[in-house]
């Protein structure tokens, strides 16, 4: 029955994890997974209770209570912005625990271990150790305890390779001679590798690294499960190992990076996100755009010359239709000089058969932005440049502009950070509430529409 309960826990993990991939079901998914965990823990404890073990209950319960309190405290106290590093820390703990389980198995084993057990123990120890130290370096970088820029070790990837090789040899020795100490050496080398491998990676890439380490901690748990022959660990760990890997790849793609380029970064291989413009911007994908729009109550679309260049009038209309079908109020704010001729935007929107009733001019639109959830700026630049309001040095100072920066979220669709007709930079792009969604307007809006429909 214990095994079937573990299976049930595994099923709950699967269902929960699947739920977490869609915004509507994510929260429920997390809770389902947590129920799975509860089932697994309770069953284990009950199982042990029913056995006559040498278990020191005080230690177990003490450990559980201490861990629960610390975990809960950290989770509740943390600031929204510090969550990623907290996840990294938690992940480190998990990896460490798996390594400790394997270590306990090593200590407990009296006889010579069969090869397969030795292999899984080695894997569990080393992967757990890498996860532990790697995660804490990542934590340190994000928390600002370790410099978050790229740091280069003497020897670079070569050094890491050497450490890894040494760890493999040590583990091999351990297996061959059944030497406990050799295992500890391998573990220590792996822990060192976790540090030297993550240290060189820049802060911007940390989320991908944490995700990869998360996958590792799953594999470590799964290996520990193989060691002690526990299905719950095997299922849960494998699930996370695989899912984490897929997620890592997806995150890397979303950031326009490849995983190898992150892990084996050389000088000059800086993140793409940093190479445009001088200040950092919030890059958004079609999905981000779709989610922001889907959960808005009111959306104002601000078309500009880029809409005309991309001939994205039909795409913008289709997106607006989809939003309206969800009950979201969509209007269009037309700046008097948007485009390259008087009435340029009108021509396009009329072609797409946007009702005139939905068009707001500058005077109608500006008072509305404060109450607007999302402003979608499509290929406009100068006409939404806040410098016109507040930078007396700007060549367009004094020109009335659409104050889109007042909305809760502003999504800007354009191909790059390059300037518009007036040839000047736009501070809007660097605001916290602005998401830059780069791409040709037509393609970008079409992608956002299909993302919206898949929500």
């Amino acid at each position: 029955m214990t095994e079937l309960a573990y299976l049930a826990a595994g099923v709950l993990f699967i269902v929960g994890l699947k739920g977490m991939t869609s915004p509507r079901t994510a929260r429920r998914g997390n809770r389902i997974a947590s129920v799975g965990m509860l089932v697994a823990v309770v069953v284990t404890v009950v199982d042990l209770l029913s056995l006559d073990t040498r278990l020191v209950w005080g230690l177990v319960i003490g450990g559980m209570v201490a861990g629960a309190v610390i975990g809960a405290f950290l989770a509740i106290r943390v600031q929204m912005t510090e969550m990623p590093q907290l996840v990294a820390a938690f992940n480190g703990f998990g990896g460490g625990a798996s390594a400790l389980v394997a270590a306990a198995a090593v200590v407990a084993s009296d006889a010579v271990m069969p090869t397969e057990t030795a292999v899984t123990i080695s894997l569990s120890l080393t992967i757990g150790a890498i996860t532990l130290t790697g995660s804490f370096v990542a934590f340190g970088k994000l928390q600002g305890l370790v410099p978050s820029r790229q740091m280069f070790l003497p020897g670079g990837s070569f050094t890491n390779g050497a450490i890894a090789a040494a760890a493999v040899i040590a583990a091999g020795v351990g297996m061959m001679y059944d030497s406990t100490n050799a295992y500890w050496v391998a573990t220590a080398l792996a822990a060192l590798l976790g540090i030297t491998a993550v240290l060189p990676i820049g802060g911007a890439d940390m989320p991908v690294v944490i995700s990869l380490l998360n996958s590792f901690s799953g594999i470590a748990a799964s290996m520990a499960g193989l060691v002690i022959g526990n299905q719950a660990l095997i299922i849960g760990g494998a699930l996370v190992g695989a899912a984490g890997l897929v997620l890592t790849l997806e995150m890397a793609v979303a950031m326009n990076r490849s995983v190898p380029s992150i892990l084996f970064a050389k000088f000059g291989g800086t993140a793409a996100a940093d190479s445009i413009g001088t200040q950092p911007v919030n890059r958004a994908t079609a999905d981000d755009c779709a989610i922001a729009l889907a959960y808005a109550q009111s959306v104002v679309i601000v078309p500009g010359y880029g809409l005309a260049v991309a001939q994205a009038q039909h795409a913008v209309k289709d997106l607006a239709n989809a939003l309206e079908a969800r009950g979201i109020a969509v209007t269009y704010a037309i700046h008097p000089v948007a485009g390259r001729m008087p009435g340029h935007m009108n021509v396009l929107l009329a072609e797409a058969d946007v009702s005139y009733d939905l068009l707001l001019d500058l005077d109608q639109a500006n008072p509305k932005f404060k109450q607007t959830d999302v402003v979608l700026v499509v290929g406009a630049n100068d006409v939404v440049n806040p410098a016109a309001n507040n930078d007396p040095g700007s060549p367009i100072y004094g020109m009335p502009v659409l104050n889109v920066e007042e909305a809760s979220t502003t999504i800007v669709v354009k191909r790059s950070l390059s300037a518009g007709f007036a040839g000047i930079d736009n501070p809007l792009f660097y605001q916290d509430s602005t998401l830059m969604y780069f791409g040709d307007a037509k393609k970008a809006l079409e992608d956002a529409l299909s993302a919206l429909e898949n929500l």
Partner: protein
Amino acid sequence: MMQVPCRPMHLGIRNEQSATENRVAAPPITVTAFIELGFDVTVESGAGGGAGFDDASFVDAGATVVENLADGPPLDLLVRISPPTSSDREILADGSVVVGLIDPTANADMLSRWGVDGITSLSMEMLPRSTLAQSMDALSSQATSAGYAAVLLGVTTLRRFMPMLVTAAGTIPPSNVLILGVGVAGLQAIATAKRLGAVVYAYDIRPETKEQVESLGGRFVEAPTMKMDEGGYARALDEETELAQKAALASAVEAADLIITTAQVPGRKAPRLISSEMVRAMKPGSVIIDMASSSGGNVEGSRPDETVEVAGVQIMGPTDLASRVATDSSRMFGRNVAELVKRMVTDGSMAVDYDDPVVGPTIVAPQRDGET
């Protein structure tokens, strides 16, 4: 069955140019089609002038150009885009055929007199509105031109922009265009006004036009509608419905910058849809184009081919709208008439079949043997 004497058959095209007529009944390309059917074609000099076809182009097409058709041989077939005149009798051989938009009601007497001489008059106005006869349907083709031209006339008369323009010099609101009567001309008018960026409202007594209006991006004005009769034409309304209709239209009329009316009931006076009172409620500077002016007018006070001003609103009653796009109107008419003639010609001889579902209904005179 009327049989026209064999080869060579003589076909004539008049120079119908006048102040309100730029079209020609058969452009050069149609002349070629007629020649291929076995006709000798004679064209009056200058016939295509207003439509952009010079005499040389007719000669190139194989026609003989003469100063007056009276100078040529008597005709077996006369093709006309405007109604025939009594002087046409002189150039027609006995037993010949006249075909075109011949206004059978107005010319009934003359045509039946000609009928006595065995001259057959075919009225393209009376073609059945069947799917089969569409390629000969000159009313449709000319209404297409007229609907298009009406919008352009209205737009150039109105001193306002059609589309909305948000500019640095202020926001220019779009013009409101109202189309009353959604037949062929009305639909084309909706499409053209919509293309120009106007906000287009439309209304017709036939309920199925709602879908058609919306299929062109127009909005349908909700007012009383009725079932249509079999021929696809609207019937005349009783007085009560007419009043209810006018009331429902009043606010749409008041809001409009440009109104184009096309409502017709075949064989009857056009329905009066807009009263002077309604006109006075409109903004000064607005324009109304009454395409039904010659059959009594949809608008109170409209007069054919005149512009009447009421309270700053210009009411125009042009009858030459199709002629304003003379080149294409002539091309389409030529094709229509050629298709009809093609149906009557077999191996170089022409026969008018009273029982043909397409040709039969167009015969104005003479009556079928034994009917008188």
